[in-house]
């Protein structure tokens, strides 16, 4: 079947099967490979994108269900000239990534959080990241980056 949706501000359409996952449509159909597949079992959040402004795991939604929706992926977060978003810049400044595999999902999750809650507490940030797994950083620098992106002082973290 044919699906049409808006991805990062551009109208796109393509042929999909019923079982085609949104993440496969993005990666293989549109070559937007910034959205990663970490687990494919709905656990890790590496595939997180925004669908009509809401955080969604692109590996746990069919492309056909995104018909008519506005999808934002990590490729749509920086400005067209490549200037990083506040959240992306904060991840770089605060070393919020190591291998970077989880980072697209983390940035999408953090961006959605700050839209709803511009000054989250450390606890709120950690709760919001429940569905985003990072195997490298131990999360502290991710939390710091999100605190910084929201213009807040970084707390002294208990485990440091």
């Amino acid at each position, binding site marked *: *079947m044919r699906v049409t949706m808006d991805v990062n501000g551009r109208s796109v359409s393509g042929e999909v*099967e*019923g*079982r085609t*996952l949104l993440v496969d449509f993005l990666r293989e159909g549109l070559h937007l490979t910034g959205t990663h597949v970490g687990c*494919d*079992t*709905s656990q890790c*959040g590496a595939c*997180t994108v925004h669908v009509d402004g*809401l*955080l*969604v*795991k692109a590996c*746990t*939604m*069919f492309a*056909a*269900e995104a*018909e008519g929706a506005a999808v934002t992926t990590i490729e749509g977060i920086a400005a067209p000239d490549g200037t990083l978003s506040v959240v992306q810049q904060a991840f770089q400044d605060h070393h919020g990534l190591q291998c970077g595999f989880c980072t697209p999902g983390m940035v999408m*999750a953090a961006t*959605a*959080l700050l839209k709803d809650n511009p000054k989250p507490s450390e606890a709120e940030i950690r709760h*919001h990241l*429940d*569905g*985003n797994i990072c195997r490298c950083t131990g999360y502290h620098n991710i939390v710091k980056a999100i605190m910084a992106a929201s213009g807040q002082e970084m707390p002294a973290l208990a485990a440091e």
Partner: protein
Amino acid sequence: MYAFEIERPTTLQDAVAAIAGGGQALSGGQTLIPTLKARLADPGKLVSLHGVAELKGVCTDDDGRICIGAATTHATVARELAGSYPGLASLAARIGDPAVRNRGTIGGSLANNDPSACYPAGALASGATIVTNTREIAADDYFHGMFATALEEDEIITEVKFPVPRAAAYEKFIQPASRFPLVAVFVAKFDDGVRVAITGASETGVFRWTEAEAALSSDFSAGALDGLRVDPDHMIADLHGDKAYRAHLCAVMTKRAVTAAA
């Protein structure tokens, strides 16, 4: 995944017809899609409820019950019920993670009746009514054990009606890898008595702890539960906890829920 088609009806009537014609309901997909990926289901045709406006949203009926459309997401329930039924809002707000809550729905959760799911405890403790395309089913008659419900083939949940208790709380002892409860307890105090429903613990799925209900109905305090214990015989035993551990958690989490609600 095996191949299948997806239909996207926009009215309940069309959805019911498509399901009667051999389709399986697809609501949030947060349980069904992982099941399809594991090739544990081969539905041939999925019928997405996502575009059916009649199945979405929250309202209050003439009896003061809160009515939640089957395709309403956990995130919407968490937001919309924060003032009217905070105990249930807080249950919805702790299901899975934010992305799961933006897609997963109450109808999907109750239809699936995972023995560790959150909503079955909220629905049973509240004495909710599960409304389908053909009838109304009291929560007490709806849950038939692990992954089993009163739903007939091709019957779909359209709405769930919740009487609002005087006080309520949900206490979830989380299994952090799955983010489901290891054991969780919903306590609801009504004018005519207290209802206690426990999920995650029993091999027969969600259940009411009637001894605790009797004790709490005369004295709504954690102390009223002293000495009461759940029989470990029918508890789930797995690598996360044995029967005795789960039975113990039932009492601990019930006390915590009573303290939180009181």
